[in-house]
């Protein structure tokens, strides 16, 4: 079971939900795909951390061989090559490493060079396997890191996996939810929260993923996000109350479900709800 946890912006409780779900599931895998700002590991404080560098291949030009035919520049769909003063130049951060330019160059003036864009860490925290993707600052796309993170061999069939997605709905988020069996959208009870929720709501619908909402920071007042869910007929999986204890546990990077019975119960019941939803989805969909 692969569950992706999303939100329209950072700080809504996406990490709170995914970390605590992985913690109450005990034998589980937590994957932090928020490669620009990973913070799940701060909660898990994983041990025996193994690191793997992630590299991409980008073209490099041998000016002596290049005859200035421009074929590579015209080929690049990503506009990562520009043609100036009869020579191509590479914009490394824009390059998507498709390798096409190297193939089209008739003079073999282009060759591959490796560039490190970040790393993956894997460690354990109790029985939770904690995977973290970390992108070097200044890189444009974390997608190669996410691809590596979500590689099939990381999943064990019976082990629930929780994917902490990057905020927003850009293609890096799509990459993160692509193989998920279920999506949890985390929303704050404000008008702005609704706006953010709507972004990810549209995304999961586009992908045809089963989904449900967790409303975070709920108080006894009007909740526009809840209203949104009711109007659209979206399943509300859980309402996490706004309380100081949870807030302070969370802000001191502690896993609430491991520290207090109350939160253990709360997240365990959310987990049960999610498991039920996933089962029912797999039972009803072909």
């Amino acid at each position, binding site marked *: 079971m692969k569950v992706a946890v999303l939100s329209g*912006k950072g700080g809504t409780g996406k990490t709170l939900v995914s970390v605590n779900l992985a913690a109450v599931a005990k034998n589980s895998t937590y994957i932090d795909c928020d490669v620009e700002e990973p913070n799940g590991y701060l909660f898990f404080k994983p041990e025996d951390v193994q690191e793997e560098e992630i590299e991409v291949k980008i073209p490099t030009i041998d000016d002596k061989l290049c005859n200035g035919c421009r074929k590579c*520049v015209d080929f690049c*769909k*990503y*506009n*990562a090559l*520009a*043609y*100036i*003063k009869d020579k191509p*130049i590479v*914009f490394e*951060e*824009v390059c*998507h490493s498709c390798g096409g330019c190297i193939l089209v160059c008739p003079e073999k003036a282009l060759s591959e060079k490796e560039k490190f864009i970040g790393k993956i860490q894997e460690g354990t925290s109790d029985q939770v396997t904690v995977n973290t993707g970390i992108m070097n600052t200044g890189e*444009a*796309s974390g997608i190669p890191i996410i691809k590596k993170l979500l590689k099939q061999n990381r999943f064990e069939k019976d082990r629930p996996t929780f994917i902490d997605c990057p*905020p*927003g*709905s*850009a*293609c*890096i988020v799509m990459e993160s939810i692509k193989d998920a069996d279920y999506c949890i959208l985390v929303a704050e009870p404000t008008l702005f929260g609704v706006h953010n929720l709507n972004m990810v709501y549209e995304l999961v619908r586009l992908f045809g993923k089963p989904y449900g909402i967790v409303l975070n920071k709920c108080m006894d007042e009007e909740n526009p996000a809840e209203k949104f869910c009711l109007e659209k007929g979206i399943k509300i999986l859980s309402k996490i109350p706004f309380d100081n204890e949870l807030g302070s546990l969370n802000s001191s990077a502690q896993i609430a479900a491991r520290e207090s019975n109350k939160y253990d119960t709360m997240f365990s019941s959310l987990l049960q709800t999610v498991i039920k939803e996933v089962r029912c989805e797999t039972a009803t969909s072909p």
Partner: protein
Amino acid sequence: MKIAIPVDDKSIETSVCISFGRTPYFLIYDTETKESIFLDNSASASQGGSGIKAAQTVVDNHVEALLTPRCGENAAEVIKAADIRIYKSITGFANDNINAFIEGKLSLLKEIHAGFHHHGGK
């Protein structure tokens, strides 16, 4: 001398487009012959690197100056590598800007905004 301006429409009286990479057209104006041609900006619909591609169009037309309200990092790198100067356009129409340029009233564009190649918003 030829100059390039990102414009909203195929007319000399059109407004300057606020986006360099996403402009629908480029006006290429020759200050000697007073000729103007309009080019489609093939980068306006591209998924990423639109600034680079738009800059390529400008470079390929051998202009000596670009008049634009703003310009991204990557685009500026292409333009500058081709020794084209970038001037900050003034609000108003394309022809106002051409006149202001000829009269030497435009200043060089100083702020270059950081690249935004995160493929769609966040």
